[in-house]
């Protein structure tokens, strides 16, 4: 799903919710996943000028989960470690987006190359 403007965020969140409901994720975990997704999609819009998102159902053994990927071709992040720190922001925000999103999901992966873009992948297991 391509995200290019603010108004794309709400339909994207709804789509994530549909997937989460489909695999029977609890309400609390759904809320955590959608909140994390909302943070990451905002980052993608704000710093990466929008990009693409992928929603997938994944499984590990008996456990089902949702994997979300956020792919942008923006300027990339110079210091990923610093960007993952609580309270650090190059914009005028609270700096909770990346570290907060990481706390809300089961697995979090970020790859970024300056000048090429950033890809963030998260997984929330149904019971995790």
């Amino acid at each position: 799903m391509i995200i290019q403007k603010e108004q794309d965020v709400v339909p994207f969140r709804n789509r994530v919710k549909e997937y989460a409901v489909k695999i029977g994720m609890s309400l609390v975990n759904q809320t955590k996943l959608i909140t994390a997704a909302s943070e990451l999609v905002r980052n993608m819009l704000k710093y990466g000028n929008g990009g693409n998102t992928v929603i997938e159902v994944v499984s590990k053994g008996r456990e089902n989960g949702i994997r979300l990927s956020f792919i942008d071709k923006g300027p990339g992040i110079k210091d990923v470690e610093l960007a993952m720190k609580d309270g650090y922001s190059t914009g005028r925000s609270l700096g909770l987006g990346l570290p907060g999103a990481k706390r809300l999901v089961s697995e979090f992966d970020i790859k970024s190359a300056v000048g090429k873009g950033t890809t963030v992948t998260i997984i929330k297991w149904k019971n995790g």
Partner: protein
Amino acid sequence: MDRIPVLQMGKFLLVTIQVDLYDRLALNLESDLVQMVSKTGARGVLIDISALSIVDSFMGRIIGNIGNMSKIMDAETVVVGMQPAVAITLVELGLELKGVSTALNVVKGMELLHKKIGSFEDTIEEEEHDDSSTD
């Protein structure tokens, strides 16, 4: 342009957020509310977020901003109806809603606003009373 309606009820402003907020809508609400506080001289702002299924760091910041801005404009802000899952998520995200009081539902929120503003007005009345007795 999309807007969230702000209702006036006596000394209070009432906002019920019934749609999923995107950023522009939240920013509009912030400026609308502060302007309404100034225009109406409202003493309290009640924000009902019971229909919000998520509150992320941006929305949290806007709610905090509304609280702080209203405070400067001499109005109290109470946020009511937060869903349990939203509260759990907010804390894990690392967001404290500084400067805003919360209540479980609209009725309790109204009571809280009355208490906050009422007690303040009582003290003024008492002071005035004291003044007249010393005269």
